[in-house]
């Protein structure tokens, strides 16, 4: 507990000595909310919001959100940007280990084939074509309205 308290005072997390600060950051209204649709074999929409256990949904959604964050950051791991801004010239000590510590192009390119395998496992369907659509939506008058969408990832046999 002592290590956890020290970690908390420093605001630094070292698993398993967690900082229990979830939902304590002031929330700011985003310009738009993003929703993902997972289309299997051009006809089946995988239900990534209910229908599976919370743990399954975590493994369907969380890696996908990080993949989208990588794509939106020009295929550079956002943690690299964060550490560069914090460490400045001291980042040179981490640079040689970048490919081991963070997601490089080979890991990013391997995401869609892995995602297809994982979804095959949980859905029990052979997937020939997988499409991930990112949709920008907003809430208005008891409805969620789609504003725009684009394909963020695709895998074809």
């Amino acid at each position, binding site marked *: *507990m002592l290590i*956890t308290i020290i970690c*908390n005072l420093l605001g*630094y*997390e*070292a*698993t*398993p000595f*967690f*900082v*229990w*600060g*979830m*939902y*304590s*950051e*002031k*929330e*700011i*209204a*985003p310009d738009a*909310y993003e*929703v993902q*649709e997972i289309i299997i074999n051009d006809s089946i*929409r995988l*239900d*990534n*919001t*209910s229908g*599976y*256990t*919370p*743990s*399954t949904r*975590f*493994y369907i959604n*969380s*890696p996908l*959100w*990080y*993949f989208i964050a*990588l794509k939106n950051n020009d295929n550079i791991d956002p*943690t690299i940007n964060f550490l560069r801004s914090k460490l400045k010239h001291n980042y040179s000590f981490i640079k040689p280990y970048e490919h*081991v*510590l*963070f*997601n490089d192009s080979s*890991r*990013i390119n391997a*995401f869609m084939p*892995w995602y297809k*395998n*994982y979804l095959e*496992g*949980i859905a029990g369907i052979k997937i020939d074509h997988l499409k991930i659509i990112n949709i920008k*939506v907003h*809430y208005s008058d*008891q409805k*969620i309205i*789609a504003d725009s969408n684009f394909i963020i990832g695709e895998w074809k046999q």
Partner: protein
Amino acid sequence: METIGNSNNLFNRERKFLCRLVYSTVFLLLIYDLISSTALYQLHSPVLIYPYVDITYILFNLSHAGDIVTGSLILSYCFSIFLFLSCITIIIYPDKRFFIFSFLILYFFYFLVYNGYGAHHIHSKVGILFISVPFLFIGNNFMFTWEAVRYYTLFLYADFFFWKLFRLSWLNNKQGILIMKQNLIPLLYQHPDNNFSNLYYFFFNHYFYADILYRTGFLLEGIFLIGFFTKRFDKFLVIISLLLAIGFLFMADAFAFELLILDVTLIYSFRTEELINSFVYSSRAKTGKALIK
């Protein structure tokens, strides 16, 4: 004639009972992971990693251990089997601390893989790690570490409270509704006729009530501070922790029920006189003054 000065024999009965109770629950949680397709061999060699700035994950990635085990179907199958077996053997032989040590190592590895490759450092599984620690000990040391885990349980909820308090998020007018929208809009987009849709839309249109919910949760977390001064309200705190888990699920679609395993330290905590007695016994045993009945 029975010698009771040996502190290692103290609380053996309680330890065995609690060990079987805790690991039977852990076994059910492992089954839940299996049903959820998140056992190690079911992850199909995940590729994206997320160490962030956590030294434990950084060292884990540097070791390549995660890639080696998850990358091999045989190794990941063996790992999952050993994890289940270690849990079962603990239930059968709660006195054999080697199995508890083995389980702890294996589960910590699973914990790092689950979060590291899941691209988000989820906290709820950590309850299983912390509740395992007291069973590495026997006698007085078991009881003292059990009590320490009780204090850790109180601390983590109090920590939730303090972070919100010092970051002033409880003063943010739309904090509750923004959390709800961020986490629930995907569900409402795909399932506009969900059972809770009308209720969620009510909160979306009357954000004042969502903020009341958020602030109620914040105050409930603060109530755990009372546990540092008295054990009288421990059962009440168990009910609050359950309400908070339901609140996390309702407001943020976050599954925090695995953390409730730590509640067993609030349900079964040792009385102050037992703590004092055991301390006296162990002191006497150390000085050779064993008590003889």
